């Protein structure tokens, strides 16, 4: 299957996006923010269809809307808590706008399907380059904030006392999530971003007891599930997104049924230098 250009591009795009989705998703699950990821992808739908309508790439419309929404969510912060109704209605409005933009963009229904459910086999080389650029930015930013982000996630009160700005961290992290969502939507579509960002991370957090092993495991799982999905789609001719989602969900369910105590492969060992 590697003899085709579009397959090689699909594997490259799927792989690089999976690395970002797995790593960002790990912190997303740790911070109990999975719903925020889901909400951002819905907002992104309006951006993607709007961009297609005015003749810009769907990726850039997605990115503009997810980034805008992410920064708004980060700034509003706690004020959004217990505002499920308001958030839900704004999401409905975003999806409704997306439908309107699609109505005006009458020429193709396949474009809508691609935005909603992804089309990794349709990624062209220029999109691949954009995805690589965005991934480098997202991973570099995540690296820069990772230490305070983890501190603020596990110990918010202590972090605040130590001078960490929880608000700033929250905005920065959600902006990184926005990039990861926009990228993931290219692979599995806005409706199923959850599968790529949350599934591998949730399984990894159950299987690993050390944090950084968990992060590495989430990335490896995301890449394996994405590549596995593309390969299975090639063999069966069924949609790639279906296979990726199936593998992601299977991974999570398998992690649920494994005994936690016995499966940790990464127990903490005190270093010999300690004493």
């Amino acid at each position, binding site marked *: 299957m590697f003899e085709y250009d579009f397959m090689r591009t699909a594997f490259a795009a799927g792989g690089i996006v999976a690395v970002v989705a797995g790593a960002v998703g790990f912190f997303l699950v*740790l911070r109990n923010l999975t719903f925020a990821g889901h909400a951002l992808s819905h907002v992104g739908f309006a951006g993607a269809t709007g961009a297609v309508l005015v003749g810009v790439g769907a990726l850039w419309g997605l990115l503009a809307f997810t980034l805008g929404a992410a920064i708004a969510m980060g700034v509003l912060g706690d004020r959004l808590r217990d505002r499920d109704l308001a958030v839900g209605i704004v999401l409905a409005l975003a999806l409704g706008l997306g439908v309107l933009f699609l109505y005006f963009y009458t020429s193709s229904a396949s474009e809508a399907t691609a935005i909603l459910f992804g089309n990794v086999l349709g990624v062209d080389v220029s999109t691949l380059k954009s995805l690589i650029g965005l991934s480098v930015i997202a991973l570099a930013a995540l*690296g*820069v*904030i*990772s*230490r*305070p982000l*983890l*501190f*603020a*996630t*596990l*110990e918010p*009160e*202590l*972090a*605040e*006392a*130590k*001078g*960490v700005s929880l608000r700033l961290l929250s905005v920065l992290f959600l902006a990184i999530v926005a990039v990861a969502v926009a990228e993931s939507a290219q692979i599995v579509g806005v409706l199923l971003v959850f599968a790529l960002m949350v599934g591998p991370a949730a399984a990894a*957090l*159950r299987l690993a*007891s*050390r*944090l*950084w092993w*968990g992060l590495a495991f989430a990335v490896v799982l995301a890449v394996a599930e994405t590549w596995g999905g593309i390969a299975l789609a090639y063999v069966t001719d069924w949609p790639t997104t279906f296979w990726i989602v199936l593998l992601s969900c299977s991974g999570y369910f398998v992690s649920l049924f494994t005994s*936690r105590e016995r499966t940790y492969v990464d*127990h*903490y*060992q*005190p*270093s010999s*230098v*300690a004493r």
Partner: protein
Amino acid sequence: MTEYAVELDRATITRGRRVVLADVTAAIRPGEFIGVLGPNGAGKTTLLHAILGLLPAAAGEIRVFGARPRRGNRAAGYLPQRRAAVADLPVCGFDFVASAFDGERWGLPRFGRAAQRRIEAAIDAVGAVALAGRRLAQLSGGELQRLLLAQALLGEPHLLLLDEPLISLDPHFQSEIVALVKRIQRSRGITVLFTAHDLNPLLGAIDRVLYLGHGRAALGTVAEVITSEVLSALYRTPIEVLHINGRIVVVAGHGAVEAEAHLHDV
């Protein structure tokens, strides 16, 4: 003139529009173990937040080792009141403690040997080496408090601010934690402010009591402060102090001030 570890000079501290502490003056010497006592809502947590620089003094002055309180002061170690959510975190004890190591600085987590050694030293100091490899969900309340204490010790602080470390612990674990803090305070010669809503577990460990109530404060030894006269003046209502089998019970006209049932205060 001696430099005090913590000094409140006619300090008024407000939270929102509510005046929590009004015109409080107190001076704590370096190396003292202070029990910060008072009923719920008396301002124990608020006082610690003010010392940490999270809340400014609305009037008067607060000084920490002679300087204005500021967030990120490395001289101060802090153990926040435990949230129920901590126990659900899917991390092992070592990683939990390690997350606080230099956590206020940008960058990747520290994996180096020097970092690992210092984190392990803090875990060792609270006798939690055996807990480092276990998930937080598998730990008891007392074990979690040890790890939180290890986090507070990471920067080798001169001042430890411990917010209700005894909360929802059995008496046996309460005395273990008090003894542990006392040992650390003695061996390192550091100042400890230890909040609690019951004085008894702290008897024998503390040097002095800072008793908060009705926005005011009284600082002194247990014998000086926990008396009918001082507490009655603090609350402006008759208070009786009873000594029963070595325990001290503070009783207001209508019942115990330090009720057993405890809800989180702000």
